């Protein structure tokens, strides 16, 4: 479904989405009055009706709705917070405007190219192979095209051994599978069926801690573990859940 086919029926506007976009860009409607959530819902409903997700068209919709959301959120920010932003409202408006216009320029140029492509499709070019006698390169017809120094330089390059690559920036990876295993072992091994997150993982690096949280979420979803935190930033207590030890889930 193309965005042009998305018919909207909002309090402030009724008509195709493309038109809404044009009107918003011309500020005939304030973006602040446009309930973008309803636009998204309308789009999803239309998708369900038609029953097919066309990736290109969906991408186009996402680009446009994301730009509108960003623009609207900037408009809604209270004045007091503005000094903390990298961009003042003026620059933000400029940047967003420039981005939307730049995108529009290439979208329209692309449409023009498509028209050209269609118009040219009728002209067909020959792609037959050359007759045999013309396929042999003739020495007489060749003349110097390369600088011999290119070869000397290439050979010189081969004499040098490259420096050992610096791999210090490659961090060890943390696997969700392994963290799940660690959690399951700890829970199974603890006498009370409870462990304290900070005690168990407080000394780990941030990445490991974050992946461990993901593993906990996964175990919570499967009923293998529950966790409680009584106060903000307080201790996290992890307990065996109802289906703990009922076999390792796939």
């Amino acid at each position, binding site marked *: 479904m*193309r965005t042009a086919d998305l018919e909207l029926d909002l309090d402030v506007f009724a008509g195709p989405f493309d038109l809404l976009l044009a009107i918003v*860009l*011309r*500020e005939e409607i*304030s*973006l*602040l009055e446009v309930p973008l959530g309803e636009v998204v819902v309308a789009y999803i409903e239309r998708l369900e009706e038609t029953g097919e997700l066309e*990736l*290109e*068209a969906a*991408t*186009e919709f*996402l*680009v446009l709705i*994301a*730009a509108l959301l960003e*623009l609207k959120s*900037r*408009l*809604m920010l*209270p*004045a007091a917070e*503005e000094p903390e932003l990298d961009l003042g*409202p*003026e620059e*933000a*408006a*400029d940047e*967003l*405007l420039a*981005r939307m*216009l*730049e*995108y*529009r*320029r*290439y*979208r*329209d*140029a*692309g*449409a*023009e*190219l*498509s028209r*050209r*492509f*269609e*118009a*040219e*499709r*009728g*002209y*067909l*070019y*020959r*792609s037959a192979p*050359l*007759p045999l006698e*013309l396929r042999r390169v003739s020495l007489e017809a060749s003349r110097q095209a390369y600088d011999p120094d290119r070869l000397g330089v290439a050979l010189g390059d081969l004499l040098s051994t490259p420096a050992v690559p610096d791999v210090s920036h490659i961090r060890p990876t943390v696997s969700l599978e392994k963290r799940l295993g660690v959690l399951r072992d700890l829970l199974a091994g603890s006498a009370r069926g409870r462990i304290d997150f900070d005690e168990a993982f407080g000394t780990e690096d941030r990445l490991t801690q974050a992946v461990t949280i993901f593993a906990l979420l996964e175990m919570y979803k499967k009923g293998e573990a529950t966790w409680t935190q009584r106060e903000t930033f307080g201790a996290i207590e992890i307990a065996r859940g109802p289906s703990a030890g009922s076999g390792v889930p796939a």
Partner: protein
Amino acid sequence: MSPSADSSATALARVIEALLFLSPDPVPVGELVEACEASEVQVRNALDLLAEELAPGRRGIVLREIGGGYALATDPAAELPARRLLARPKTPPLTPAQAETLAIVAYLQPVSRPEIARIRGVSSESAVQTLAERGLIEESGRSRFGAVIYRTTELFERLFGLTGLDALPDPAKFDPTPEDAAELRERLLKAGEQRAAG
């Protein structure tokens, strides 16, 4: 023009027609000059003559100036019978995403993939890949930061009937007028200020 000059131009036009028939790519005037061992003026006169003889509607073949050179192509009237005879796959129409991506590469080349994504607001992997597979764009090296950079190909010019990249329509044609843009900016700002004040 004397009869002999006239007949030599005709002979040259015939040779050029044969060369364009054989050549798999458009042939620049300079190469015709060398191959025919004629002067550039003579070649251009012969090309004029040939263009006249192969003017649209006169024969099954037309002369086209394209991709920095000259090429023969079939008259679009023969497209349908040609497809029946050769069962060649249709050049599928461009999707909007492909057209946008191609426009960005065509106008801004050389351009890196992240730059394309920035302008379109979405990752453009699949459009870039399809365009490269169809031979419309190609890699032309790496940016300072290691990103692959792209440019359009000769095939692109051929399929879009362009004599060269400078024959692309002026992109400013697609921009709103400066007045419109300024006014829009004004209104965006005012909306922000009102919000801030309220």
